[in-house]
């Protein structure tokens, strides 16, 4: 099925983001959007080790943006999407800091819900970001989770 071209925005940045301002940008001067679903990921203060003091996010400049764009385009091909924004932060972050925002706008809610989950599942397994946790007991590279891989695999079998 051919969908009307979605407005895709990708940003990889050190700075924080303003979710409300991004939503306003998406909805400005249009009234055809019926649903907006957004996911925000935050830094936890516990992960593989307790007492996470901070997190350092490394990425592969160039490839990261390209990978995110590919994921966004796949989502827009699969569902009827009007706008899709991905913002991912890099550098040093502290517990409770927002890391990632995925915001999807569509005419009906199910497309937005599904596309948002799809983007996050692929982002977690295909976008070249790496987390290093700085804890009271030393620094650790976060290891990949099998559950993330499984979450992604479900999209390959459905639809």
């Amino acid at each position: 099925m051919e969908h009307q071209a979605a407005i895709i925005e990708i940003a990889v940045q050190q700075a924080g983001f303003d979710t409300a301002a991004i939503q306003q940008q998406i909805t400005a001067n249009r009234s055809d959007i019926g649903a907006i679903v957004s996911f925000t990921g935050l830094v936890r203060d516990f992960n593989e080790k307790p007492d996470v003091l901070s997190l350092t996010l490394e990425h592969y400049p160039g490839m990261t943006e390209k990978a995110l764009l590919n994921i966004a385009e796949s989502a827009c091909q699969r569902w009827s999407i009007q706008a899709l924004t991905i913002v991912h932060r890099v550098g040093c972050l502290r517990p409770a800091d927002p890391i990632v925002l995925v915001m999807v706008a569509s005419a009906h809610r199910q497309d937005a819900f599904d596309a948002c989950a799809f983007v996050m599942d692929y982002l977690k397994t295909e976008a070249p970001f790496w987390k290093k946790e700085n804890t009271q007991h030393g620094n650790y590279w976060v290891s990949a989770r099998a559950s993330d891989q499984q979450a992604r695999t479900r999209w390959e079998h459905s639809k």
Partner: protein
Amino acid sequence: MTDQAQTQHPSGLTHLDAQGNASMVDVTDKAVTFREARAEAYVQMQAHTLAQILNGGHKKGDVLAVARIAGIQAAKKTSDLIPLCHPLLLTKVAVEFYPEPAHNRIRIEALCKLSGQTGVEMEALTAASVTALTLFDMCKAVDKTMVISGIQVLEKKGGRSGHWQHPHTEAVASTSAAYTTAPATDAPANSIQVRFFAQLKEQLGCEQQWIELSQLEAHTLDGVLQHLQQQQPDWQAALAANNLLMSINQNMVKRQARVTAGDEVAFFPPVTGG
């Protein structure tokens, strides 16, 4: 000229007078002509040291930029260092770097020019030597086994001897491409760039290196991994990880994917963003 010939030491060494004493050659009456000389030097190092230099990620900063300035400054100081060398008003000093990843070394080439009465090969040799010494100084913390070698004059123009060229010059000059600006844009010919990220980068102690395609048995990512493991036995375990991800020109691919000259290849652990 005839005057100089009479007072010169019979050995033909110009810096000795007839009695064998050190003497600065009197060039007062020599004609002012355009002079030019090129000299080279090599710094041999470990592969990861070369990668670090080319990547610009060295903790002392831009190694090549500093070494180049040191070489240019040194050329201007030659007469202070070499006792019987005339002070010269150089009109041009240039230092270029030619990385040779296949030989784990950098070739340094220095060029000096002036219009004057004596040759400029000592200036070119000094520039090449001090550039090499500065490279050594900048990198000695990570690699003490570096070897400076092959310091020689490549070419000399002007003056009585006219145009003189080292018999091997042409062969030397054509083996590699000049390294002048950012590593990503000035790739050595027929090579691929190999980059490492995250914990793999830390395990290997290497961010990037260049591999000449001719060194690979198979022109695939598997071939690249095989080559790296043969070159660096202590990298074997890290590169053997079966969950290693890899990309060519920033697209994730499988290990059977083919590489061609100019490709940007990367190896990295499973991703953990989001």
